[in-house]
């Protein structure tokens, strides 16, 4: 009695495995056909991103500061010349 029920369970598990895999393969195909850009990881969502122009300005200043340190000339100021004026919040 136990043997047939065990066999039935194995068959069901096998069919379930194949069915789920076929579904996942369908999803992989759909992803390949529709998804052009990588999906944003969930931990990046709902966080803000800085305005690219401001980010570049600050980065340029940081590079200038770094270069002046390497060249041995004292920096005129350690504070950013132009304060960050705006930050774009992206929901």
């Amino acid at each position: 009695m136990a043997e047939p029920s065990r066999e039935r369970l194995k068959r069901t598990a096998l069919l379930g495995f194949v069915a789920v895999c076929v579904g996942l393969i369908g999803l992989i195909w759909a992803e390949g056909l529709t998804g052009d850009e990588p999906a944003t990881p969930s931990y990046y969502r709902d966080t803000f991103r800085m305005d690219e122009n401001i980010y570049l300005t600050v980065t340029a200043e940081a590079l200038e500061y770094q270069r002046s340190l390497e060249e041995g000339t004292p920096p005129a100021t350690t504070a950013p010349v132009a304060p960050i004026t705006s930050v774009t919040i992206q929901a």
Partner: protein
Amino acid sequence: MSNGRSIPLQAVPSPHQKKQQRERLLIVLTVALVVGAWIVGYFTSGTDVAPLVPDLLPGTAEVRTDGPIFVALDENGTVLGYAALGSAPGYGGPIDMLVAIDPTGAIVGTQVVTERESPGFFRLVKSSEMIGEYNGRSITDSLQLGQDLDAVTGATVSAEGVAAAVRAATRQIANEALNVSLPAEQKPIQFGWPEAILLLLFASGYLTHKWHNRKWKMRARWGTLIAGMIFLGFVYTVPLTITMIISLLSGYWPDWHNNLYWYLLIGGILFVTTVDAKNPYCSWFCPFGAFQECVAAISKAKPYRPRDLSEALKWVQRGLSLAAIVLGLALRRPGVASYEPFATLFDLRGTAVQWIFLVLIILASLITYRPFCNFLCPLDPVVDFIAATRRWLKEGWTRWRNQAANV
């Protein structure tokens, strides 16, 4: 009591003959479907490139064509620059790059027009700095990966395809628009460790499977399996995939100088399967098959395939394989049709769905022997198809030869 009439004997086909007839009908239908998909792909693929030129050369008011060169003009009719389409083989097929160059010979923009790569791999190229790296380069620069351009780890073939396509377009503009003659590109044949290991695995698999000593045969098989898993899987990540088969059918054959491995792998499998009716790859050195066998060895999993479900499961697998081939051919995007979890395992790279798929297969490998190979792999039906076609052709050839001998 006989009435004296003779009853003509009708040949009743045996179950074996019926099965054979059905098999041959399906071979014909499969070929028709594949040819149909190929034709659809041939006539529907392609992109109109001219509208993309203003994106690369801002201020363009008019785009004229001069042979293969697009000439971008501003409102006053001044030439802003030239653009051309360059094509080079990638992993799944040709990669077409549109390259724009200003009249001084500096690259001002590049854009991927079409590609047939696996999305996961090409995403690496697009997300890298590589495509933007061309801007500002001169037509006289070598534009070679590893020399004046950064390589892209994990997508070497695709990145090389992009670089070669940019070089092809640049060369075209230099020669035909700027009248600058560039030296011919050197194409050394690349034969390295992957090619050498593959040849060794082919040779050892082919020779040792003929051994009569079962114990040594098993040891040799485990040796080639482990070597295949380590080198073709984890070290170089170059297993056989359905993408390669679709590329082969599409006519997207890579440059043999730097893709010798592709030719050795596909050529070797087709050669041995056609000539010897043996599948030298799957049971001897398929890296993913080897991985599943290692997992099965841990849990001592046995093959499980209920007899009454066997035929239905085989058709599901064949259906998946055919669907992948038809999809890849009809869309002319071999990389999109691939669903094998090889890169996810060996390169640790994949989407959430691909990871779920891999984990499910690993768990199933603990319970049953090689579940992916037995129920899902798209390559097994391809090998079956070659074997069935071979049987048919061999039988036809023997019959024809016997008839010729009797005449």
